[in-house]
Every structure is written in structure tokens, then in C-alpha cells.
């Protein structure tokens, strides 16, 4: 049981790393941003996992439902979800702008065009 209780974190780390892999291995800018979102959603799961208490219920106060899970990570992640969407929107707007300037969203082609200037 020494490491048995950590499996949740390990699978979440695997999910984070798939997102990270998409960000660094993919040449397409839209796919990079989708990878960033995958990474971000995995971090949310990590934080919510930390707040879970064995036998706990959702932190809505009602007699007979103690113990409650930790509400603080929930609040932090609520903020993070909304901020994440704002950054995604900004990133995708930049991708659209890059597409108009370079007529491509592939990293290699954009790099070649910059080199040939």
C-alpha cells in the first residue's frame, strides 16, 4: 500500500505528458494549442484529486453529509478554467493572424519563409 495510493497522480502525469508531447512534437499551430489545452485539463484533474477526501461529499453544507472534500482547489480551478479559455482564445486569434500573414499554420513552412526573406 506504500505506493498504491499514488496511482491517480501517476495517470494524471501520463495525461499531462501526452498534452506536452502534442505541444512540442506537432508542427501545426492549432494542434499545439489543443495540446496545451489537454495539458491544462490534466493539471485541473491533478488539483481536484488533491482536494478529494475519502468518504467525502461535495462541499455543499447539509447535516449528515460530513466529511466534505476540500473546496479550495475547486475555487482555484474554477478560476483557472475561465482564464484557460481566455488564453486559448488569444492563442487561436494569433494563429488566425499568422495564417493571414504567412498563408500557413505549419511551423516548418513559417520558419522557411522567415529564412528566405
Amino acid at each position: 500500500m506504500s505506493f498504491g495510493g499514488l496511482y491517480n497522480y501517476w495517470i494524471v502525469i501520463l495525461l499531462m505528458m501526452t498534452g506536452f508531447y502534442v505541444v512540442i512534437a506537432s508542427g501545426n499551430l492549432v494542434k499545439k494549442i489543443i495540446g496545451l489545452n489537454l495539458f491544462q485539463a490534466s493539471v485541473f484533474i491533478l488539483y481536484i484529486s488533491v482536494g478529494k477526501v475519502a468518504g467525502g461529499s461535495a462541499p455543499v453544507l447539509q447535516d449528515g453529509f460530513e466529511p466534505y472534500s476540500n473546496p479550495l482547489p475547486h475555487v482555484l480551478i474554477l478560476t483557472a478554467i475561465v482564464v484557460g479559455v481566455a488564453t486559448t482564445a488569444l492563442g487561436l486569434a494569433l494563429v488566425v493572424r499568422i495564417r493571414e500573414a504567412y498563408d500557413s499554420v505549419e511551423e516548418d513552412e513559417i520558419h522557411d519563409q522567415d529564412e528566405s526573406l
Partner: protein
Amino acid sequence: MLIEFVNIAILALLAVTALAAIRLHDLFAVAMMFGIYSLLASVMFVVLDAIDVAFTEAAVGVGISTVLMLGTIGLVGRHEQKPAHRPLLPILVVTITGAALVYGTLDMPLFMDPAAPAQQHVAPYYLNESPEQIGIPNVVTSILASYRGYDTLGELAVIFTAGIGVLGILGLRRRKRPGHEGTSE
């Protein structure tokens, strides 16, 4: 325990979806995979007692993010070029980073441990005092709108800034276009 089996099943589905997103080269399919991933994540949040996070993720992560991605794919094209070289370096970097993170978790308190430091610090204060001080049954709402109200205000500032940024990148330039045909940057 039942919750652990449900947990592992959802995590396995999440892993399959994320790996499918890596392998697919049609961006429309990748965006759909991301939508499924977010939806599974929000199911996971319900299992882990974070109901407020679950419906926010279902609305914002599944809804708005996916729509933004689909809109972008509609503007830039839906097919990704196949990578020209084998992704050995990214695999190496990802493996090393993952191993370092797993090493970092070895010191962490066990999953669902009620004695973990995260459960002992301010959380009991919020759970015990918020009925008296705020008077709302949902503690998440009490913290979001009152104890951590400045965080939420900062969040609004971030959204406002991002909105201005998107308008600056996309919106204002469109208006100039008829008068400045062929202007280079």
C-alpha cells in the same frame, strides 16, 4: 472501493482519448477528441466531488473551447502535415519530464488521505465558518465570491485583457482593410 474503480476507468478513457489526439492528423477529429477529453474530465470532477468545477468544465471546456477551435480550423484548414522526421527528441524530453514528476509524487500524501496537509490548513476554517460568516450552503460559492473575491476580480481583469487582445489582433485590422489594400506589416 467503487470510487477507485470508477476513477481508474475514467482515467483510462482519458488516456485513450489523449493518445488518439496524438495519432490523428485531421484537426477536426483532434478538436472532437479534445471535446471528449474535457467531457470525461468533467465526469471525473463529479466523481471527485467538485460539482461546480464539473459544470464549468462541461460548459466552458467542452463548449466554448471546442467552438473556438472549430472556428479556427474553419479559417486555417483542417489537415495537419505529417511530421517529416521521427519525433525522438520530443519523446525523450517528455519521458524525462514525466519521470521527474513521478519522482516528485513519491513524497506526496496518498490520494484521498484525510490527514493530508492540504486538508488541514484553511479548508476546515472555510467549512466551519462560512455558514456563520457568509450564510450560503455551497462553500465553493462563499470562497469564490467572498473570501477569494479579489482572485475572481483578477480573473475578470485577465478575461477583459484577453478580449481586448483578440479584438486587437483580429477585429481592428478588418476595419482598415478597404482603405489600405495590400499594406504589408
